């Protein structure tokens, strides 16, 4: 009898160990940063740069938001070309390929900012995130929005978010550049999400500047991508503690 009880207890223990507790692999998959490696700060290099625009940029077009009074009266302009003194904003710059660097994955060096819907606009217009990391989506407007990413590498989804509702948190598991995100209720609302495997990416600010921090020494192919002007690439090598410059220039089409 005692033997039977002991056997049953052992079986139960086995069963609970197999079902209730996630394996270490599952835990790691749920939190990708746990298995990721940090770049040695003693050797980490930086790349900074400026993205310029050559030519006359198209005049920003004003958006008519009369369809929904809750969008407010603040003027809203098309953000396809944001050019200030010849410098181009909203360009996504990232490491497209890397050679002679330790095997990844690497710890994220940027904190991904949330996507905020305010004044029937997406803020920011271009965003980057690492695969498997969370993106938080906030609706600060007094109207309902739809969030509809249209990736080609993974499944689309389309969710509505009530005014000032709880944030929506999503993960994107497959790398893809310039995924359009649209609101089908307000057809002018559009932004681009970039999902990359490495932590070295940035979006140019209003002065066209970007900075890629914490790169391990190695040989890189950098890519600068603009929603209308396409992609440019550049090869660059960095040594330990290097601070290099990589500038891009896009021409008017």
């Amino acid at each position, binding site marked *: 009898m005692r033997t039977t009880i002991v056997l049953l207890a052992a079986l139960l223990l086995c069963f609970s160990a197999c079902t209730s507790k996630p394996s270490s692999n599952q835990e790691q998959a749920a939190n990708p940063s746990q298995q990721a490696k940090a770049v040695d700060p003693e050797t980490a290099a930086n790349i900074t740069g400026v993205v310029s625009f050559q030519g006359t940029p198209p005049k920003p077009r004003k958006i*008519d938001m009369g369809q929904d009074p809750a969008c407010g009266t603040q003027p809203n302009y098309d953000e396809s070309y944001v050019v200030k003194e010849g410098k181009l904003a909203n360009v996504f710059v990232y490491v497209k390929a890397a050679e002679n660097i330790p095997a990844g994955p690497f710890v994220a060096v940027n904190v991904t900012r949330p996507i905020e819907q305010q004044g029937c606009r997406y803020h920011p217009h271009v965003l980057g995130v690492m695969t498997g990391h969370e993106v938080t989506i906030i609706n600060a407007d007094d*109207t*309902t929005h739809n969030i*509809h990413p249209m990736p080609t590498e993974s499944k689309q989804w389309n969710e509505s978010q009530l005014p000032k509702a709880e944030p929506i948190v999503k993960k994107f598991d497959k790398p893809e550049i310039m995924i359009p995100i649209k609101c089908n*209720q307000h057809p002018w609302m559009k932004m681009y999400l970039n999902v990359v495997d490495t932590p070295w990416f940035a979006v140019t600010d209003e002065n066209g500047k970007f900075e890629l921090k914490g790169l391990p020494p190695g040989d890189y192919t950098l890519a600068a991508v603009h929603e209308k002007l396409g992609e440019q690439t550049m090869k660059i090598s960095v040594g330990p503690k290097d601070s290099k410059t990589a500038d891009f220039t896009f021409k008017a089409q």
Partner: protein
Amino acid sequence: MTEITGLSDKILGWFGTPEPASLQRSKLLRSSLTTPYNKGHHYYALFTAYATFLVIIAGALVTSNEAGLAVPDWPTSFHTFRMPRMVGGVLYEHGHRMIAGFTILLTLGITIYTLLVDRRGWMKKLAIAGFLTIIVQAILGGITVLNFLPPAVSTAHALVGQTFFCIAVAIALLTGRKYAGEVEKTAVDRRKPSLIGLTLLSVLVLYVQLALGGMFRHKGMSWEPHVFNAIVVAIVLTWTSIRVLSYYSQVEALRRPAVTMLGLVMVQLCLGFISFLTKVVWGKDAVQPMPMMVWSTVAHVAVGALLLATAVVLAIQAWRHVPVLSEEPVHSTKAVIA
């Protein structure tokens, strides 16, 4: 033309020859066309056809305003059957769903009405087919929303929608006073291709054009096939209209749809050109749907639907008024003479 037919029948009678088999078939078919005129039934059918036209316009507004996914779920809207806030794209998408829902109820009504008052068996079948078509149409609308508007499904939604419109127009026509009581002026068609063949060809090329236009509108194809096929459509429809106006202009039931079709072809070509300018040339980089693009493309879809329905009406009237005389009985007549 009626005189010609009468004369040919008399000549055949002198020689003791039976009526041509095609005419016999035609008469048999026409005898099954009779039912007492019911004003309420006819007006209800007309109202259903008008409501269907409104659904097509509402659907075109959804596509032109890029609002197909403004309501992400189906058959509910935002997971409820309550009225949502009708702003932005929701106004178009939910508005389309409301008018479509109302039209489904109207169609259920016309189906029951037809089953109750119409004596013609094939008319009852047509009404049931109409009801099944609108149910398929509603399901296609749901499938396309839940699958993020795949071009093939959205185009099928457009095709089935216009098919239902043609059925609704046909029911309105076939329940009309003229259809029930009009004395037929039968004219025999000996030309090749026959008029009925031309009208059916018109319907076919319009369907192809609708499919190509739908694929372009739903981003599944470039604009070129639709624009090039417009030339084919214009030629076939003009040919059909001119055939009617040249040989059967005394038959009002044929002349009116032929003139309408010719007029609509011209209007449609102009609207197509304006739509091309506003959508492809000026609007390719538009940051939001521009009013001129919206109204020109919606008008283009609406006139396209009218054109298809007119071609169907012309085909029905051609079948009714101009039976094709096959060559088989002519040979037998010669044999008797010899």
